[in-house]
């Protein structure tokens, strides 16, 4: 895709939970500004991959390079400061802090010298501006998801990792979030990798897909090939 280093280059990644190997040699390469889906059935290691990519789970073998820098074995805060915005499954906003305070934490992404863009967050998600001083734990699931995305976006990340952004959220909000993500990429050139099970969401935003099975990437859907049939085939819905 790009002439320079890929934004994310993962090779031969292995990771365990306890003694059970979950990832068994994952290879992923994503260029600047791509929107890529990571799909597959339950329990194949998609979320585990994401946790490795933000440094919350340490890989037992293989390497993770972001923007040309080797981050393998680093703690999660180092991943974030290099410019990775992580939006976890279940959103994990800080419930007893206000929306504005949640966003303040996200400003650490990209390090102290990176650009911060609170105005842009409120522009994409006006709901957050209305609820600026509300405790995050009292908001609806869709609002919390917007906050989780805004909290990553505020630090102007080079790479955003989204784990099941559509989970438990009403379709109209999912659609709005998909539009926002595409527009973020178009305006800022943000690279996006997301895990998803929902067919409509996959079709709405992914330009290509990696298919995961038993802890490994077993297939790829190339750009232009992300159709309902192709995705269904791999998810065997």
């Amino acid at each position: 895709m790009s002439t320079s280093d890929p934004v994310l280059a993962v090779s031969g990644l292995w990771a365990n939970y306890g003694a059970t190997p979950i990832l068994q040699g994952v290879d992923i390469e994503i260029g600047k500004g791509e929107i890529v889906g990571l799909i597959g059935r339950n329990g194949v290691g998609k979320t585990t991959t994401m946790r490795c990519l933000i440094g919350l789970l340490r890989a037992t073998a293989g390497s993770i390079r972001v923007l040309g820098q080797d981050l393998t074995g680093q703690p999660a805060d180092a991943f974030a400061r290099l410019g990775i915005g992580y939006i976890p499954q279940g959103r994990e906003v800080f419930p007893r802090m206000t929306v504005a305070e949640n966003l303040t934490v996200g400003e650490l992404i990209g390090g102290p010298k990176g650009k911060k863009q609170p105005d842009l967050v409120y522009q994409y998600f006006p709901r957050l501006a209305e609820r600026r001083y509300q405790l995050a734990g009292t908001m609806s699931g869709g609002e919390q998801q917007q906050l989780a995305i805004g909290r990553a976006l505020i630090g102007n990340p080079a790479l955003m990792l989204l784990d099941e952004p559509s989970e438990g959220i009403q379709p109209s909000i999912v659609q709005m979030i998909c539009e926002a993500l595409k527009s973020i990429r178009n305006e800022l050139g943000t690279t996006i990798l997301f895990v998803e099970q929902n067919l409509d969401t996959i079709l709405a935003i992914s330009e290509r897909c990696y298919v995961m099975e038993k802890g490994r990437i077993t297939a790829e859907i190339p750009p232009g090939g992300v159709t309902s049939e192709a995705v269904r085939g791999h998810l065997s819905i």
Partner: protein
Amino acid sequence: MLYQFADVFAFLILSAAGLAIVFGMMGVINMAHGEFIMCGAYVTVGLVHAGFPLPLAQLCGTLAAGVIGVIVEMAIVRKFYTRPLDSLLATWGLSLVVTQGMLILVGSSVAGIGTPPGSFAVGDYTFSVYRLVLFAGALAALGFVYLIFMRTKFGVHARATMQNAKMARALGVPVGRVYALSFGIGAGLAGLCGALYAPTMTLIPTMGATFIVESFVTVVVGGSNVLLGTAPAGILLAAVRTSLNAWHGQIIGQIGMLIAVILIIRILPEGISGFLTRKQR
């Protein structure tokens, strides 16, 4: 009566604030809390003997305890975050070592410095001005905690870490540094307590124990949130104690306060702040 209340309130708040921060932030039960108080007191008295004015000596005592707190966190407490019982044991061990070490090094007691003079009269009673200073100190400590944790970036990062350490780390919070600083602030507040009470009491290496019952009791009643818990717990317990003191003397006051504590944790097992946050949701 109001004056008595302020006195007891100040004692509870000052002795508990540091402990509450360390417990609320990190879930660490700091058995060496009393020794940080002692540290603040000894540094203060030592500096006054060396010719420092009292307020400056107290400031140094507070800072010394804070700095030692940061060092203790990095050297010992850090290793035990996933093992709360072991951290209790480790800090208890530290407490014993420090107490006995002080006994060997500086002896069983140090010459005191005497309470700053000055008193005022209301009707037939005279009151010491320094007791009011202590009350002001307690309010200042609460105000300081509020400003640090609610109004600074560090405070936001610290609260995020407290609520979800993994997510905070994944957003770039240097969790280790936040823990070290919070522990330092907790230790510093303990040092402040020692520094403020140093002129009013005899300095012995086991003086931390004088504070420890009140501080633990206040933290238990308050729950894990310093701002929502410790302050109301201080008010409540001070009210109980002062009224019982007035009724039948110190001993009854102490007994009554402890009975009140037992009742409160029976009704509110998560303490006052646990009760308040649940109501909020």
